[in-house]
């Protein structure tokens, strides 16, 4: 079992710093995801761990072993590439057995291990096919089997699902997660798909512009984003800039730049006068008819400007005097829905209002 430690890694291409001084620790057996938009440096980081790029600065450890100078073929990693990288001139069997051949495993052992690997990914009996005879999903699984059969210390996956259609993606991510849990291999997964990242990861790091914006488990990342970047990257969110006007034992009062008064119960580390970003998820934004009242406060009047019916929810775009606010209404029905142009009242639960300190 291997843990991976990245220490002050930096990588530059030409005049662009792709990875800017990042440090991470991925625990043994953990399913760790690096999430971020295109160009954020996540794939570059992965490739440095694999050994295809040499870090300009910083160190990479597998357990206590410094591996910077170790060639990629000697790192005992299993890697799944975005385009699967299956060799077209070899059968499925030969593709999967390749790593074992490199390790000089005896033939009969190769046979049994390859067949087990194919079983593991549900591709029994397809050993004689060539990659061009397989569907995208099947190719993906061959790539997975090929990486797993060698029992690597670390499993690296570079956006392995991005070439699959939406439904297959959801199916495959569940399978990958299950496999990883059973085998217990330290896994580093790279993706730009935030739903995917939240669904499979034990922990994840959100990256932007070469830097790590936040590390945490999916719940922390989603509910308690540490900064504006993470907050707006993950899911939809309503953001208000403001200042803390008052702090009590249980509550915090904020006055936004646009003059809105809000109250939150998120009192940790909050001081009066602090500049904050107030974050509320649309699913925690409730839509009521215009005469709704609650003593709790956090009420805003507005007009429905847009409606997206997504089946399981309706997403409202509400225009208010302060800014446009998104609100999700689950299990929408004809009776409970609101129409375009209708005047409504929005409310937030103070427990669901998250504060991000602006530094």
């Amino acid at each position: 079992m291997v843990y991976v430690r990245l220490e002050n890694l930096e990588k530059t291409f030409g005049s662009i710093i792709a990875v800017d001084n990042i440090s991470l620790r991925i625990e043994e057996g953990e399913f760790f995801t690096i999430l971020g938009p295109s160009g954020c440096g996540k794939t570059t980081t992965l490739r440095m761990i694999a050994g295809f790029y040499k870090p300009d600065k910083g160190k990479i450890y597998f357990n206590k072993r410094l591996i910077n100078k170790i060639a990629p073929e000697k790192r005992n990693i299993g890697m799944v590439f975005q385009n699967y990288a299956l060799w077209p001139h070899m059968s499925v069997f030969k593709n999967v057995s390749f790593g074992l051949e490199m390790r000089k495993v005896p033939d009969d052992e190769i046979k049994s291990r390859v067949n087990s690997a194919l079983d593991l990914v549900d591709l029994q009996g397809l050993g004689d096919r060539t990659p061009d005879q397989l569907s995208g999903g099947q190719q993906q699984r061959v790539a997975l089997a090929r990486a797993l059969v060698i029992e690597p210390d670390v499993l690296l996956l570079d956006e392995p699902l991005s070439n699959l259609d939406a439904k297959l993606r959801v199916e495959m991510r569940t399978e990958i997660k299950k496999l990883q849990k059973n085998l217990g291999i330290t896994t580093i997964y790279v993706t730009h798909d935030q739903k995917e990242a939240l669904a499979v990861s034990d922990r994840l790091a959100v990256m932007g512009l070469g830097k790590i914006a936040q590390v945490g488990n999916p719940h922390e990342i989603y509910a308690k984003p540490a900064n504006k970047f993470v907050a707006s990257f993950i899911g939809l969110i309503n953001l208000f800039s403001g200042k803390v006007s008052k702090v009590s034992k249980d509550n915090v009062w904020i006055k936004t730049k646009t003059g809105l008064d809000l109250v939150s119960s998120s009192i940790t580390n909050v001081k009066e006068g602090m500049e904050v970003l107030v974050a509320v998820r649309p699913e925690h934004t409730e839509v009521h008819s215009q005469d709704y009242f609650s003593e709790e406060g956090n009420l805003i009047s507005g007009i429905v400007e847009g409606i997206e019916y997504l089946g399981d929810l309706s997403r409202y775009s509400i225009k208010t005097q302060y800014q446009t606010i998104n609100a999700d209404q689950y299990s929408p029905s004809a009776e409970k829905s609101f129409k375009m142009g209708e005047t409504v009242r929005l409310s937030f639960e103070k427990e669901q209002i998250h504060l991000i300190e602006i530094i």
Partner: protein
Amino acid sequence: MGRLKSFKDLLIEKLKNLRSIDKFSLSLILIAITLLSVFILFPVFSVVLDAFVEPSGEIGFQNFVNLIATPSYRRGLINSIITASLTLTTTSAIGIPVAYIMTRYVFRGKKIFTLLTILPLMIPPFVGALALVGMMGRNGIITNFLEDFLMLFGINISLKEGLILPNIPGIVLVQTFHLWPLIYLNTSASLSKIDPTLEESARNLGATGFNLFRRITLPLALPGFAAGALLVFLWSISDLGTPIMLNFTDYSVFQAFNEYTIQGGYREIASVISIVLTGISALALVFVNKYVGLKEYATVRAGAAPKSIQKRISGKLNIIVVVFLTILILFSIIPHLGTVVMAFTKNPSYGEWVPQGITLEYMVEALVDSNTSLSILNSLVYALLASFAGIFLGASIAYLLVRKKFPGKSILDIISTMPFAIPGIVIGLGFLYIFSQPIVGNFRLTSFWYILVIAYSMRRLPYTVRSSHAVLKQVHVSLEEAATSLGASRIKTFTSITLPLIMPGLMAGAILIFITSFTEVSTSLLLQPIIGPFGIYARPLTLQILLLAKGGPTAVKVASCLGFIQIIATSIGLYITNKLLGGKAGLAFGG
């Protein structure tokens, strides 16, 4: 993207690239640079320098002055430029319509024509010139036939001098025969890749017919056409074989050749002419690159490219198209038929055009005569070795260019593509200047047959670099990385993954070098080593053909037999290449 760095950091980055390159690649780079410098750069420079050495021995521009001042040299230069331009015009006049017809229309009989349109590529141009002169020159079979034919209509013209004369129209005619497929193939490559939605959207906005063709189709097909046009122009202006065959002395390349090889000739003018021709070639290259660009931009959309639309034509238009193509094909096979007739029939009496019987005696003579048969063997050996050398060097350079980053990479790219724009005579002269200097004692490289192998592989280097480059690019780097991640060493990755995947393309490239070396003209005529692989006879096939062609009637027939052998070799090679590349062989040959 991450934040930007300063200029100093950029410099450090460049040096870092050099340090981080692996030993294997570094040694490849050094080998490549050394070979290219010694066998391309230095020879070219030596010709350039020699141009500035005046007859008196001083350094100056006198040779250039003489070039312009002497009427014959001036004529030679003007003739070359005019010929190249005219050939470009005629080949385009034929090639572009054929390209349009073949890519846009579906009609009865189209399949046959697809095969036949690359016929001219199966005959080495030198052999073609020999056949054309034999058939349409003085006392040629076609010449005499035409005279008699016209007589039937009461038209009494004397064609005693022949239909093909030693003048510009003669050269243009012979060159056109060989070169029009280059325009056709390259233009149709562009035309067929044009995404039909580009034209559809134009049609949607109101463009039709000729307007559509002129403003949308033509510009999009331009890169392909430009590539073909460049090839035609460069080939024509440095063509040594045709003027020699036609005995047209007022042609620059021929003049350079004569002045160098003749005893007491004006040697320095050969260098001047050569570099002036090179300069014109370079200018043409720059011009095309700058104003047209050789990149394909005809496929704009993401996602799968739809097949280009083809219109089915029938009735009158079908007939016109078929007649046009048939006449074209009939003309195109004159050189092939001519070679066969000249090789395997007895000559008709003077002024007549009916051959006097079929015979194998000339072929037997070709295979039995010791010198002639040796020249066949020699060329086989040279071509074989040249293809090995060319593939090894070309693939290595392609590997460095595709997979590696290092300072000086673009220079390597340029030098390995240079021979493309350099007339063969420049390489030949350069080799003579440098390598006829004794290295050790009396040992001169130019006395030995290796010099030809080196010359052939260097001249063909751009082709092998290009075909290896294309084929290597198709092997996505992730395929190699996957092998590395699973534990394969660099060599194992190359032999298990890369090599099997690029083999067809490599083989195709090797065969092309073989064919073109087997039939190469310029350096084969200029470099005349004495010691061959099988004894004191190093003449390659083309030189043997030339010597025989300038001899008596029997010698000419033996020359035709040798030409026939070259046609067979070329056709077999092209066929195999076609199979390996899946039908695009013609492009690789000309492009």
